[in-house]
């Protein structure tokens, strides 16, 4: 009995600290001035971008996130509104309608948008990646033909690399493109294409030459081209606000003028696109984790068991602290990777892989923990936390599985010696 007295004193002290903690941090989802505030370390201009993205996410996306998921709606009008603000081609050059911002600005923006709807933001990021590929590797005519409509989201884009037989082993892709006069004739199929069937512009990696990466070229295929068709819409665990379909090419004739860069440059273009894509996907995971930390925090302050709020429970306090720490650590590596990519540093590709690996894994764990903290309520679709968990689960798989990310990093380490 005597031993319990110091424990109860500690308990009272802890709950006293907790009450003060509540006084300082009792705020809503807008991430106000706490240790996980995503505005820390940003320039004033970046904070302005972030504010617009947060406002847009809170007003235009968050209220519809559940409906888009349940009804599997592709929110074209909302995305076009986002494009009007400049989110259609964030790191595309201004001369073709882009916003000309940096990779770090882009990461900040996608992180904020993601708090409104991960799935829609992830699609917007894929669209941005395709627009950038055409902007960077296209010639003047191609840039002027495709980029303005993509930046305004008058037209939507899809990235087609994966096939039923080649996922992680992307360089072994089998879709062929045979040169016949001034056209390539494409034959093959692509799998798991985000936006497939609903989008207008398909950036397709296909084989014009021999085996391996050096035989791959990048072609832009437009919807409506004879020979281009789509499989059934896949039923997914998450990412339901974007349709996913197979893209089927049967003797599909694509003009040579639609080829981005040189023959044999396609794999290189695809990988460069993915570096940015990986930062974007990681940023989407950051946004989801940030929202979930807020949700968990709010729940702990409200839910009472055993006569007090869950926020007085030390295990949950520590768990929340761990979640916050991992979130900030993930954010730091993603932002560093963005800076490295922007500056074309030699470690950029490896850092992008590390950032994608670390952030997607940690953020999924954060969201999962947040769901656990909600108890039974976390499992109900009335509560947003489960949608964040479902939506970001796939980030550990696409744009290069986290296993492939490990391959990239280990290759960098082991070939140096």
């Amino acid at each position: 009995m005597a031993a319990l007295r110091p424990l109860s004193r500690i308990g009272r002290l802890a709950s006293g600290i907790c009450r003060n903690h509540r006084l300082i941090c009792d705020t809503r989802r807008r991430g106000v001035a706490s240790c996980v505030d995503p505005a820390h370390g940003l320039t004033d201009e970046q904070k302005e971008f972030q504010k617009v993205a947060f406002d847009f996410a809170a007003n235009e996306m968050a209220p519809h996130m559940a409906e888009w998921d349940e009804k599997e709606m592709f929110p074209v009008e909302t995305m076009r509104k986002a494009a009007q603000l400049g989110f259609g081609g964030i790191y595309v050059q201004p001369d073709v309608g882009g916003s000309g911002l940096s990779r770090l600005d882009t990461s900040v923006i996608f992180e904020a948008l993601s708090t409104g709807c991960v799935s829609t933001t992830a699609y917007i990021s894929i669209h941005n990646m395709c627009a950038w590929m055409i902007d960077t590797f296209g010639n003047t005519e191609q840039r002027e033909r495709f980029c303005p409509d993509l930046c305004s989201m008058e037209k939507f884009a899809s990235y087609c690399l994966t096939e039923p037989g080649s996922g992680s082993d992307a360089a072994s892709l089998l879709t062929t493109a045979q040169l016949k006069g001034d056209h390539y004739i494409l034959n093959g199929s692509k799998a798991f294409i985000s936006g497939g069937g609903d989008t207008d512009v398909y950036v397709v990696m296909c084989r014009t030459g021999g085996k391996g990466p050096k035989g791959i070229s990048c072609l832009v295929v437009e919807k409506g081209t004879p020979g281009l068709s789509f499989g059934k819409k896949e039923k997914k665990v998450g990412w339901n606000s974007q349709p996913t379909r197979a893209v089927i090419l049967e003797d599909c004739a694509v003009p040579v003028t639609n080829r981005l860069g040189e023959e044999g440059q396609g794999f290189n273009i695809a990988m460069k696109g993915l570096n940015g894509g990986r930062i974007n996907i990681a940023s989407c995971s950051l946004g989801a984790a940030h929202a979930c930390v807020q949700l968990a925090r709010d729940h702990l302050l409200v839910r009472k068991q055993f006569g007090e709020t869950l926020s007085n429970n030390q295990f949950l306090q520590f768990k929340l602290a761990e979640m916050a720490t991992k979130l900030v650590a993930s954010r730091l590596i993603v932002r560093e990777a963005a800076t490295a990519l922007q500056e074309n540093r030699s470690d950029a590709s490896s850092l992008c892989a590390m950032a994608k690996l670390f952030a997607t894994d940690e953020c999924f764990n954060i969201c999962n923990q947040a769901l656990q903290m909600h108890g039974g309520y976390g499992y109900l679709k009335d509560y947003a936390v489960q949608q964040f968990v479902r939506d970001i689960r796939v980030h550990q798989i696409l744009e290069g599985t986290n296993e492939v990310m490990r391959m990239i990093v280990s290759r960098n380490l082991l070939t140096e010696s």
Partner: protein
Amino acid sequence: MSGRVLVGVKRVIDYAVKIRVKPDNSGIVTDGVKHSMNPFCEIAIEEAVKLKEKKLIKEVVAVSCGPQQSQETIRTALAMGADRGIHVEVTGKDYEALGPLQVSKIMAALAKKEDAQLIILGKQAIDDDCNQTGQMTAALLDWPQGTFASEVALEGDKVKVVREIDGGLETIKINTPAVVTADLRLNTPRYATLPNIMKAKKKKIANMKPADLGVDLTSRLEVLRVDEPPQRQAGVKVETGGGPGGQTEGGRDDIEASGARRGAQNYADGTL
């Protein structure tokens, strides 16, 4: 007419923040707390930018009075479409004592200096809820005022303002130059676009001090104490006397005695 519109924008604690009173009851905690533009000031800027887009006025000048951080608020106004900004630097004790009287003196001086045709302000700030600056500015300038505007239409050298008043909507026509204060339903402020945020970097913000405008900032008010509203008391159940006719004399005494009427007055603890 100069075609120039002055819009006052105030940096306030963000509406979503749950505020706390300082331990010494001298004010509200502002350190490390998220601030943003007063929502009614956003509506004011939006209206001014709309007038410029309709080509009814030529230039929108955003004005803010406060410390260095007020420039962030001006930048937001520039990103929404204002052409240039004026930052009237007020810091320290002067800033703590800054109220509608001082700001309206500054706005009046600037209106004369900039030869403004119209001043648009938010109807009130969400931190002090004074609802005075617009009215005082108009009085100092001896200009007409259209407050609580839910519609503003420039017609030649007059302004038609539809005002939201307790009894409904009142439409008035006033001469320019005039002061208009924006109410909630005047418009929906636009999002700043990414290109506009970048263009805003290049727009000029002029710096000046109140002394440059010949304004005396002395306050006639002293804040003695700031408290949270009293905790809401629980209601009290009372025995009712008498039959189905209602309360008897005895019953009313019981209710008064139990302090239920005090509780009713406390109901207006409201939200900060």
